């Protein structure tokens, strides 16, 4: 009986929480997250099962809830008893009876208040603990998904799965769910008690309220549509405002302020219109409920008096009946909000389940997985074919052997298949046909822990976490000491770079490493890879231009990093190709040329052309 009773549409702003309704992206969706197809009840059942905290000790919480709800009828009963037995009782006003009655009721009220507190507390605890578990599971699962699946969703949408979507469930559980229990109990108890006083009047009341219940359900459907529109409009509006901020330079440089202002005005007004419309629908239920309540009251008084004259009901009972009826109005007024919240929660749950239901298509063989011995790796590609889901073939029967300890450079035009090649090499994806073997073992049979220790990839954008430089390097091997980090930096020939930073390893790198230059981020990524100490190093060289000094440092670090290891680099620099023991030239999903730089330059072919333009631009 102690649910937070704030009327929700008063505080409803209509923006709702994040969680975009459409999965976004116009590309093919076949690789995306699974959409949970469970019905509402199925979703709730599965959702609750995921977090045992929800149901642990639930019976006790429900017991407290039952007692707490009983508290709602104490006052109406007291009023009835006092009017019937205290005031109009046989011997006139009976002060003693009333005192006893009030005393008992006061004790009961305090007792139900305590139960109510306990119920709330247990509910808060259980839901928050359960939702924390849900968040953790979903988070972990996102990381277990393959790169392909991860990239098929916007990062923001994935974040919503562990934040906004879970918050929606939380909102419902602590507010709507609570109200659902309490209001449901309230209706049952009020009905029972009213029936005890007069079954005829109870039927009258239900006849009055029943249509409202159905009306509310219908209204709620309109409402969720209206709120969806508000969310969409708000999204557009934020997009328009975002343009003024993110496109500030472009807008000024090209003088398009007036046009931008117009776009903002339009979207702000469209948002407002959607909000006002949603608000109009959401507020409509309260006046209707009031009218229904008035109708009910009138009917009860008229019918009550009519029955009462025949002795079917006492005056006190009739008045108590009127008090009990107020218990009906409140849940009805809240019903639209409760349904709405429930629907949002179910949608949120469905989205979280959608994440958990998506089977990682690149799975860790786990316990059964093989562990590779240390030492420079030999790599075999055996008839490897790959095509993206619903896409053309990107790699077509690739056969190639990479000898241990060699430096391989991979070159080719955009779309030639070179990126796919290294993704297969690091098992970010599995081939459709054929196999990739490390020292003779199929990659798919190698346990992830062994694979990630022996094969390390340095992606094109050296992503840094918002932390210190040292922490970012240590990310590869958390147990390494500062001394080890510094030694690594020195061994890669980057000592003077580290010394030039005011705070050395403690230098903060900023969000995504933005306090560092692009070149410095690459340096950090290289040191990080060095600390990881892999046997097979896979590099996707960055394309962005770096000033020559940093460029020199990167090259020197690269040279030292690759010594004694097998390394495969997607080369964008001429120097990388020159320094390689072997260059693989990709074109249209095939390896069209293979050999040392000197050999390939001498041949006529793709590489010679590529080289010519490289020389023109950079040497």
């Amino acid at each position, binding site marked *: 009986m102690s649910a937070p009773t704030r009327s929700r549409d008063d505080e409803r702003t209509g923006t709702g929480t994040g969680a975009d309704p459409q999965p976004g992206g116009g590309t093919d969706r076949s690789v995306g997250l699974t959409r949970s197809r469970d019905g509402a009840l199925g979703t709730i059942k599965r959702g609750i099962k995921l977090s045992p905290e929800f149901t642990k000790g639930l019976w006790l919480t429900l017991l407290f809830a039952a007692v707490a709800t009983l508290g709602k009828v104490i006052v109406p009963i007291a009023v009835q008893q006092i009017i019937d037995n205290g*005031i109009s009782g046989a011997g006139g006003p009976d002060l003693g009876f009333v005192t006893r009655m009030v005393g008992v009721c006061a004790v009961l009220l305090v007792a139900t208040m305590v139960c109510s507190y306990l119920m709330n507390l247990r509910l808060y605890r259980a839901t928050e603990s359960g939702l924390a578990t849900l968040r953790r599971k979903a988070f972990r699962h996102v*990381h277990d998904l393959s790169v392909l699946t991860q990239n098929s969703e916007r990062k923001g949408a994935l974040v919503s799965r562990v934040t906004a979507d879970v918050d929606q469930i939380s909102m419902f559980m602590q507010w709507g769910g609570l109200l659902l229990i309490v209001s449901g109990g309230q209706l049952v108890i009020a009905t029972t008690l009213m029936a005890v006083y007069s079954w005829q009047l109870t039927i009258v009341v239900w006849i009055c309220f029943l249509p409202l219940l159905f009306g509310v359900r219908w209204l709620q459907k309109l409402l969720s549509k209206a709120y969806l529109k508000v969310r969409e409009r708000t999204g557009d509006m934020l997009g328009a405002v975002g343009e003024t901020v993110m496109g500030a330079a472009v807008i000024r440089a090209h003088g398009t302020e007036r046009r931008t202002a117009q776009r903002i005005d339009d979207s702000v007004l469209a948002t407002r219109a959607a909000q006002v419309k949603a608000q109009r629908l959401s507020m409509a239920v309260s006046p209707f409920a009031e009218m229904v309540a008035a109708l009910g009251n*009138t009917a009860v008084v008229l019918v009550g008096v009519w029955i009462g004259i025949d002795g079917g009901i006492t005056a006190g009972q009739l008045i108590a009946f009127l008090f009990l009826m107020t218990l009906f109005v409140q849940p009805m007024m809240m019903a639209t909000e409760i349904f709405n919240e429930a629907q949002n929660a179910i949608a949120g749950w469905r989205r979280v389940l959608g994440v958990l239901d998506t089977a990682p298509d690149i799975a860790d063989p786990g316990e059964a997985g093989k562990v590779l011995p240390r030492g420079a790796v030999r790599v075999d590609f055996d008839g490897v074919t790959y095509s993206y889901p619903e896409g053309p073939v990107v790699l077509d029967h690739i056969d190639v052997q990479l000898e241990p300890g060699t430096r391989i450079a991979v070159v080719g035009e955009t779309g030639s298949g070179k990126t796919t090649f290294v993704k297969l090499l690091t098992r970010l994806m599995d081939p459709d046909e054929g196999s990739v073997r490390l020292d003779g073992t199929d990659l798919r049979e190698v346990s992830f822990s062994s694979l990630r220790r022996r094969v390390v990839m340095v*992606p094109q954008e050296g992503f840094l976490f918002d932390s210190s430089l040292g922490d970012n390097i240590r990310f590869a091997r958390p147990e390494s000491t500062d001394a080890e980090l510094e030694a690594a930096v020195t061994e890669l020939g980057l000592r003077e770079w580290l010394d030039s930073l005011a705070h050395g390893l403690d230098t903060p790198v900023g969000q995504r490493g933005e306090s560092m230059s692009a070149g410095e981020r690459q340096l950090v990524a290289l040191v990080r890879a060095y600390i990881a100490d892999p046997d097979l190093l896979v590099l996707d060289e960055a394309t*962005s231009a770096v000033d020559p000094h940093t460029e020199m440092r990167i090259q020197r670090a690269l040279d030292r990093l690759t010594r004694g290891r097998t390394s495969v680099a997607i080369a964008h620099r001429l120097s990388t190709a020159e320094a390689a023991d072997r260059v693989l030239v990709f074109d249209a999903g095939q390896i069209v040329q293979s050999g040392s730089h000197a050999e390939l330059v001498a041949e006529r072919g793709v590489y010679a052309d590529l080289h010519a333009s490289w020389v023109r631009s950079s040497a």
Partner: protein
Amino acid sequence: MAQGTTTTRTAPAGGAAPPGEDGTPTAARTRSSDGTHRGVFSRGMRVIGHAVRAEPWIFGLAVFGAMLHSAVNVGSASVLGHITDHTILPAFAEGSTTAAALLAAAALLMAVGLGKAIGLAIRRLLAGLMQFRMQARYRRSVARKYLELPLSWHHRHPTGQLLSNANADVEATWQPLAPLPMVVGSIFMLAISAVAMLVTDPVLALVAFVVFPVLAAANVAFQRRVSPLASHAQALRAEVSGVAHESFDGALVVKTLGREDTETERFTDATHRLRDALIRVGRLRAMFDPFMEALPNLGVLAVLLIGMWRLSTGAIEPGDLVQIAFLFTLLALPIRSFGWLLGDLPRSVVGWDRVQSVLRSEGAMEYGDRTLDDGPAGIALSVRDLTFTYADSYDSDHRDLMDDGTPEARTTVLDGFDLDIAPGRTVAVVGPTGSGKSTLTTVLMRLVDPDDGTVSYDGTDVRDLARDQIPTHAALVPQGTFVFEDTVRDNITLGAAGIDDEQVWAALRLARADGFIAELDGGLDARLGEKGTTLSGGQRQRLALARAVVRRPRLLIMDDATSAVDPQVEAQILAGLRERDDAATVLVVAYRRATIELADEVVYMEGGRVRGRGTHSELLQTSPGYARLVTAYERAGESENEPVPEEPGPAEPNPNPAPRGGRAREEDDR
């Protein structure tokens, strides 16, 4: 009457001495939060005052609705009492009733329902309208202010913050408007209830005078305790989201280094902190709600007890007792609306302050009224003695919320830079990182004003030019650009009139962007941005170039604008630019030698000033710094053991910090 005002007025102060349990350590905290709380209350009222003044009619009507609802509500208690005395009790006592009595009862009850319904409808509808109108009004003002403020201001403020100023902060500011009319109505309701009770029976009214102030005080005390906890939880919520964002952004690194376990641990820690904070909030709520519900009920019991005594002395009628008891149950809810308002106020005040700091920001550029002649030839660019500095605190990680701060230590980026470029010439600007090249391009476009010195186009100081003149005659191609959520066509023309598709295609061809655009589904009508096609870094650069050249600028400034473009394609683009018949003046910041060699002339800058000027080969001879820089590449290959020549000058804070937000997403080149 007095009661209503007393309740609200004493509410904030009344809680200053909460009953009991003020342990020593918490006492200090309570006191300090008292101070801020009182501040918040009066400041919150001022914020609300702004809204009331802005929408007086809507507010007035909403309050009218609230009062109508309240009055009818209070009246309904009397109606119930009246019906008890005149319809129900007589009928039961006499065993018969009259049609007139029944009809009167029915009419009264229906009238009450109608009155409440109308009042409620008016109140809710207009409260919402007022809230949304104020939101819209301030969102527009904030966004317009963003357009007005200079680029330098934008660079000082993180994107996320500016977006939340326009969205979450505006929303938070006007949140109290939703419960506001109800609160005013509640005060009114308390006042008339007090009068009604006093008129009915002053003794019974005393019970109310005890119960309701206690309720109000409990409300305030609760809000005061819960709001710091709630805002703490909110901060933790942001932290959880931040960890998830970062972790998913770096998913490739996490995966390739096999660090899923540690990341999950990091996320779980944040999640558990949030969980604990939310449970702490829940504990208070769990206690507060039952208490708020029980207290009026206990009041009703007290009324019944005292009422019996009054009844036995004949001071009141049974109907009076029923009426007062009913009033108690009615008043419980409105009293709680104070709590909602108080709960919204702290966020509202913070939101208002943030919004105001945007709206009060100064530094909008002033423009002259001179115009340039439209000639076919390039602009004669003249730069005299440019000096540009920025505050050191600028890129420290402790950026004050909106504080423009008093400038202390400043770093000089441009230091007496001079340059003349004759119409139609192509000049390459070369220099080490931090030499001020990018800053120079933004000053030349007047995206920022220098501390000192002048930039002139055809002899006219750019500060004397009318607002639209610079974009009309000059164009900047940045290293990374922003792509609007719009069609390709709109992204190129940016709404400029008089550019037909043929011209757009011509520009795309020149930028070597026609190929990939033609392959898009819809061609020029294909949508770009998050909801449409995502472009790679090189494609974005080519789009930016097309955007610039389609305007046929007489001055084209390229800031390392082809860095992410394949070298072959870059060469084609640069050749295309040179072959154009209308000879624009071109200034290009470059690293690649091929780019440099295409220029008529090279300017070597270092430490914010010109250190050498001439053709590439001349500079190789005359400027050792230049020679060292452009040959660093080759030497890096041969002599890896030699120390790297140190770059002079401080690292330059990128004046075009990353194409914010709209950064090039990791591309998937297959």
